[in-house]
């Protein structure tokens, strides 16, 4: 496993000094849009006397949410890996019917606003949901046997629902590029499939698995909507506590303290991650895409694949189906209506009508346009920053490890804290939250950048230096070497990054609602707007709008994947 250091070029120092310059733009970007607003919040929180927070022991108010945050994040991450790793395996190694469609579908949960997920979960698992009513009629029960809503189980299920696609994408893309001959060699030499998995495959995949674990963990660690809406008031993560203290209680010192603790934990986890992963990168000859995939052979493999697909369908896709179905179902009107539920597109028609003649009415096409514009900008910004960062990170040096941690910090930062910071510092032209439309994609890019970096970096590390040297010996300029060696190998990982950046932006609600002008709402903002008033039409339109969000997203992911496959 000591191959890593061998192939470093002799001109090591000059090239790694050049790599230092690559930090310039990403660091300016982070300094202006992350550290500066964050510092403003901490300065303000610090300027208010801590006496208010000190009425009761402030640490007591920190310890409790901290313990719960860690506990649920560990559980959620473990369960997500338990589902995600086998799923990544079947996507990487087998071809089966409708595989491409399934890959797109399992990504969709990632973009759904939490309110809509709550509606979907309720339709399935609620007291009158599909599962409970089936069980009640099957076993003649008086009360709903499954009580999931507002429990820890609901939180865990929702986290699995949201984050499994992260594992599938990050680990799956590495797995696809893994040289199958290594595993075959192990088998030929007499190792059992389990031994091959544990001694060949998993060690090679470790960088990707660690990266996926870190991303999922940070997402669970800073979970907000899921805890607030699905977990209910008995559960509070640090993020929820920050929100309540900052915006409802106006207790800024305590909110600042909680934010600092949250940031500290994030930093700690990133450091642990860098420690674990720094030794693991093994350069490997990249393989043709799809070389290792095959049809299932034998009953065991077929059962494995279809069992896995069934589990994915139940856990990740059925709530989506419930939503879509509900968006085209009109329940019987009024009391004692003769007919049952009917299929209709009424909710969709209604989206195009400004019934209230409201100033804030958004035609659905406009919301789609706003969302897509922000998402495209996010892809462009985060991908360009990400490419700079991974090359800057390449030389092994201590400074790089700490800078790497900085890149990950936005993922572990409270959206409320950052949003407050934006309001405090970006309040005059040219950077004005009220008028500068780029702040939304910039905020989205801050969240997307860690994903982009984590998805790209393992791939870059896996490129053998010998390929570049061969190209250089054959007379290629360094630019040409990059264009003909690095870029083709990076494409697949870049694609995964693009999809992440795109979906993060499309589904993001917190920062958007903070920064968006109400005249230019995104799809999630429009969905929330419908759900904030009573009435069947509002409910139906929210579901119809969510379905449109799902459709738009699947279409775009499909296009991105198709372009890359056929290009």
């Amino acid at each position, binding site marked *: 496993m000591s191959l890593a250091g061998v192939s470093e070029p002799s001109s090591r120092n000059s090239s790694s000094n050049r790599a230092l310059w690559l930090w310039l733009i990403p660091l300016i970007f982070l300094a202006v849009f992350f550290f500066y607003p964050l510092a403003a919040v901490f300065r*303000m929180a610090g300027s208010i006397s801590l006496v208010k927070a000190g009425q009761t022991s402030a640490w007591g108010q920190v310890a409790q949410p901290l313990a719960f945050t860690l506990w649920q994040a560990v559980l959620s991450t473990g369960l997500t890996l338990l589902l995600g790793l086998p799923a990544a395996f079947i996507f990487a190694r087998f071809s089966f019917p409708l595989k491409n469609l399934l890959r797109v579908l399992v990504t969709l949960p990632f973009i759904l606003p939490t*309110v809509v997920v*709550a*509606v979907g979960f*309720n339709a399935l698992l609620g007291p*009158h949901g599909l599962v409970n009513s089936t069980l009640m009629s099957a076993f003649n029960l008086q009360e*709903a046997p499954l009580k999931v809503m*507002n429990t820890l189980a609901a939180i865990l299920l929702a986290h699995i629902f949201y984050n499994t696609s992260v594992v599938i994408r990050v680990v799956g893309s590495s797995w696809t590029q893994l040289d199958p001959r290594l595993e075959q060699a192990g088998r030929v030499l007499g190792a059992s499939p389990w031994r091959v998995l544990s001694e060949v495959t998993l060690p090679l995949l470790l960088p990707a698995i660690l990266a996926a674990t870190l991303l999922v963990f940070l997402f669970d660690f800073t979970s907000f909507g899921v805890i*607030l*809406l699905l977990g209910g*008031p*008995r559960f509070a993560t640090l993020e929820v506590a920050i929100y309540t203290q900052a*915006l*409802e*209680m106006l207790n800024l010192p305590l909110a600042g303290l909680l934010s600092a603790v949250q940031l500290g934990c994030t930093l700690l986890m990133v450091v642990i991650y860098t420690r674990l992963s720094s030794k693991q990168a093994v350069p490997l000859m990249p393989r043709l895409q799809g070389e290792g995939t095959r049809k299932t052979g034998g009953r065991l493999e077929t059962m494995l694949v279809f069992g896995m697909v069934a589990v994915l369908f139940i856990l990740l896709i059925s709530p989506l189906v419930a939503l879509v179905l509900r968006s085209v179902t*009109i*329940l019987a*009107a*009024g*009391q004692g209506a003769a007919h049952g539920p009917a299929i209709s597109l009424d*909710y969709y028609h209604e989206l195009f009508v400004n019934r*209230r*003649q409201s*100033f*804030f*009415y958004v035609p659905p096409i406009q919301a789609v346009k706003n969302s897509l*514009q922000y998402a*495209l*900008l996010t*892809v*462009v910004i985060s*991908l360009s920053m990400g490419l700079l960062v991974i090359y800057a990170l390449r030389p092994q040096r201590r400074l790089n490890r700490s800078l790497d941690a900085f890149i990950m910090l936005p993922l572990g930062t409270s959206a409320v804290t950052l949003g*407050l910071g934006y*309001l*405090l510092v970006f*309040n*005059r*032209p040219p950077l004005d*939250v009220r008028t500068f*439309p780029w702040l939304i994609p910039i905020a989205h890019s801050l969240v997307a950048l860690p994903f982009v970096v984590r998805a790209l970096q393992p791939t870059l590390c896996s490129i053998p230096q010998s390929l570049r040297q061969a190209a250089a010996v054959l007379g290629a300029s360094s630019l040409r070497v990059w264009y003909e060696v690095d870029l*083709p190998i990076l*494409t697949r990982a870049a694609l995964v990054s693009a999809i992440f950046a795109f979906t993060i932006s499309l589904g993001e609600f917190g920062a958007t*609602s903070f920064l968006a*002008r*109400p*005249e*230019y709402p995104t799809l999630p903002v429009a969905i*929330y*707007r419908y*759900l904030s*008033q*009573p*009435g069947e*039409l*509002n*409910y*139906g339109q929210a579901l119809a709008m969510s379905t449109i969000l799902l459709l738009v997203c699947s279409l775009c992911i499909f296009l991105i994947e198709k*372009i*890359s496959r056929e*290009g």
Partner: protein
Amino acid sequence: MKKIKWFSMMMIGGLVLSACAAPATPPSTPTVTPTAGPVTLMVMTHDSFAAGEAVIAEFERQNNVKLSFLKSGDAGAVVNRAILSKDTPLADVLYGVDNAFLSRALDAGIFEQYNSPQLAAISSEFKLDPQNRALPVDFGDVCINYDKAYFDQKKLQVPQSLEDLEKPEYKGLLVVENPATSSPGLAFLLATVAHFGQQGYLDYWKALRSNDVAVVNGWEIAYYTNFSGSSGKGAQPMVVSYNTSPAAEVVFATQPIDSSPTASINGPDTCFRQIEFVGILKGTHQRALAEKFIDYMLDVSFQQDMPLQMYVYPVNPKAGLPEVFQKYAQLPSQPARLDPDQIAKNRDAWIQAWNGVVLK
């Protein structure tokens, strides 16, 4: 090779697209520079703010101004954001502070005084700030809504008072919102404080807890996933919502219906009156325009537009009410009230104590 070209083309295409896309959002007009063309009046408000196109356009035309709205969360969050940014105010006018947060806003000194001529017509019961820094615009009541079909089918009497809700026949039938994260949730907590007093309200909540009251964090979840009377078909037939929600259920029905599936319980002290205020933010450079906008909000045309936009009642007695309000919404004759100063002093302590009794 082709693959890379595709990818680089996509990137370049993306750049071009986004470069074209960005100007589609309108050119910014900073509030401070009154150059040629209309100036912008920035109004900070809560997420539920809504208004008709016509009334907005009319004000913009009359005053050669562009109205721009900054939505900043729920009522409490808006006030807190205004307080946090008071050194460099984000807007000229703030609309949406209610009586639960009024004193906090006034104590923080975010408003400038304005004695609008329109105030003369408005009943003194709404004018909670004698110095007229915050002017009343509209009001409504947070009430318990119930699912009519459920009570019909079970032949169950609808509870008529807060005390009724402690009875065993209503066990597990009510969902309320967390007062720490929801404005109707806070209003309902305040109603119980007003009715049972600071000594008694916690005992009442203990009784509600042993009667299996459900608690969720937001109105959206309470109404759309817990309440059985809404389209979400949840488990509880009673929910803390607004006295106008039954009227909204009629207006937003898919097929026209002549009776609402829900109704609100308008017993003595079962509802809490919310009054919403508007004020001029200290440090505005558009004082004259801000005054005009406030006058306009209190005048008849805007006041008549509000009920069907935000499902609230106008404070201007000359403004007429829409038919659905008269038919399907009832104003409680005896809503609970609390002095804003008392709320400001004790709100956080009440919430903490509630938290200890109901959630722990």
